[in-house]
């Protein structure tokens, strides 16, 4: 019985974490799906958000910390986009360069310390105590934030600007032929994407009461895994469904990892498992095709059985 209780608490914690990571996954969705650019800046901008948020929380400004984290993420994304559009460096490489640069920048933001503990500092979750000290207060609060982010993103992607942004990932040539600079669209898209990623990092830092300079490592892989898992399991039919699918994908990913850890998987294997999950998810289409062609071939050879040489 106490074992089950502990599992329930663990699962709730993992659910809460999953919701925060969902915001990061939505950011990755913008770059990877909407713009069709696998953006590796994410590893750096996630930590950047955490660092900014931790520094501001330690001077008692937790909410300002979130806002500034979002903005700093936008700036990081803008730089990556500039490398790609203005200097014509391949998107993948631009992301790697920014990720590298951000490692040093993040350390600077954190005052050259590898981590900032936030114990006994005012955090965004503190005000909840005044309203409702129940077990689920944090969870509800996080769900509300995620819902707001989802709604804002959905309405943004349904505006005139959002339309062009989505078309840019689909068909850059068409967007230019319709009189819009794709460079500007890529800048806007990567800015928003990394803004969301940084916001997620900022919330994680406050949730777990510390920021660490290496907490972003592998984040882009987790983001991609969430996007793909979400789409495969929950569908892509409409835009709204797709956004929700991505968020659910992030939550599901976190739950699966938590259960695996709970069942005794060593935490050091985490990154290996993440890589395997993403590999499987990315190869899904290829595998599906193989299976389909195999089935067809079987059916065919069945039909001609009598005449085979």
């Amino acid at each position, binding site marked *: 019985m106490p074992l089950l209780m502990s599992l329930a608490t663990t699962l709730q914690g993992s659910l809460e974490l999953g919701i925060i990571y969902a915001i990061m996954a939505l950011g990755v969705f913008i770059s990877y799906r909407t713009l069709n650019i696998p953006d590796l800046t994410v590893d750096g901008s996630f930590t950047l958000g955490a660092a900014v948020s931790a520094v501001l929380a330690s001077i008692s400004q937790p909410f300002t910390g979130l806002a500034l984290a979002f903005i700093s993420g936008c700036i990081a994304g803008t730089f990556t986009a500039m490398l790609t559009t203005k200097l014509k460096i391949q998107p993948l490489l631009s992301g790697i360069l920014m990720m590298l640069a951000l490692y040093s920048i993040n350390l600077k933001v954190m005052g050259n310390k590898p981590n900032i503990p936030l114990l006994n500092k005012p955090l965004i979750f503190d005000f909840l105590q005044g309203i409702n000290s129940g077990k689920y207060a944090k969870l509800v609060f996080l769900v509300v934030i995620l819902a707001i982010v989802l709604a804002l993103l959905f309405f943004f992607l*349904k505006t005139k*600007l959002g339309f*062009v942004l989505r*078309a840019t990932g689909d*068909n850059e040539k068409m*967007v*230019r032929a*319709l009189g819009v600079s794709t460079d500007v669209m890529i800048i806007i898209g990567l800015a928003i994407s990394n803004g969301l990623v940084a916001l997620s990092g900022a919330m994680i830092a406050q949730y777990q009461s510390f920021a660490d300079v290496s907490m972003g490592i592998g984040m882009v892989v987790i983001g991609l895994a969430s996007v793909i898992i979400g789409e495969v399991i929950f569908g892509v039919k409409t835009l709204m469904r797709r956004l929700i699918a991505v968020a659910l994908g992030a939550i599901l990913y976190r739950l699966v990892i938590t259960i695996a850890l709970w069942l005794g998987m060593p935490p050091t294997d985490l990154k290996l498992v993440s890589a395997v999950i993403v590999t499987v998810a990315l190869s899904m289409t290829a595998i599906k095709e193989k299976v389909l062609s195999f089935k067809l071939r079987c059916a065919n050879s069945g039909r001609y059985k009598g005449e085979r040489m």
Partner: protein
Amino acid sequence: MLKVENISKTFYKGSINEKIALNNLSLTLGEGEFVTVIGGNGAGKSTLLNCISGVYEIDAGRIFLDGTDISYSPEHKRSKYISRVFQDPLMGTAFDMTIEENLAIAYAKGKPKGLRPGISKADIALFREKLALLELGLEDRVKEKVGRLSGGERQALTLLMATIVKPKLLLLDEHTAALDPVIAKRVLQLTDKIVEEEKICTIMITHNMKAALDHGTRTIMMHEGKIIMDLDGKDKEGVTVEWLIEQFNRKSGTELDNDRMLLG
């Protein structure tokens, strides 16, 4: 309307692969003129359109649109006035977005892209009305993703997108070449209809000699980056495909070679 003055374009200049695609070419189009362009493989037809639309920067010469010098303005800025339909039906639309969303992007051409809703009720009514003119039943499928349309349907949609805001110049690069003959004919008819009704200044490249003669008000023939024949108005009447080929062979000193050229 459009004035192209002595433009030249050489690819891989100075290397052994040097290729002169446009050689001191000039062309002037009047208001509402509809020019069809023919010529062999590598004659420079596509390059001409790409230089006019700003995909390639010209090496020499000037391009004026409506009196404005656009020789060096970037592609997306020229696109506010110049619409294009490419040969590849995949090139003109965003496949993962719906028909109405695609049209909305085209309809917002040249206007600021703010945070207003992408499509209004009035827009949808207009889109349905315009789609109905295509007579392909697309007006009942506005919420469907473009990726699910056939090549011909997409190309018709692209044509509508290119003209829903009247452009100063419409450039068509073999926009029916990838379609099967029946659909190709239909899209050509639509092109005629839209261009004539809206009186749009148009340049249409085609590999179909007969189509070149049957459509438009003027036909030009290109060879090695130059215009070697220009048939306008009356000159064009009564011209046969055979006569055209004979003229080509005489003027260019070679046999007309275009592996996709259709005579009938």
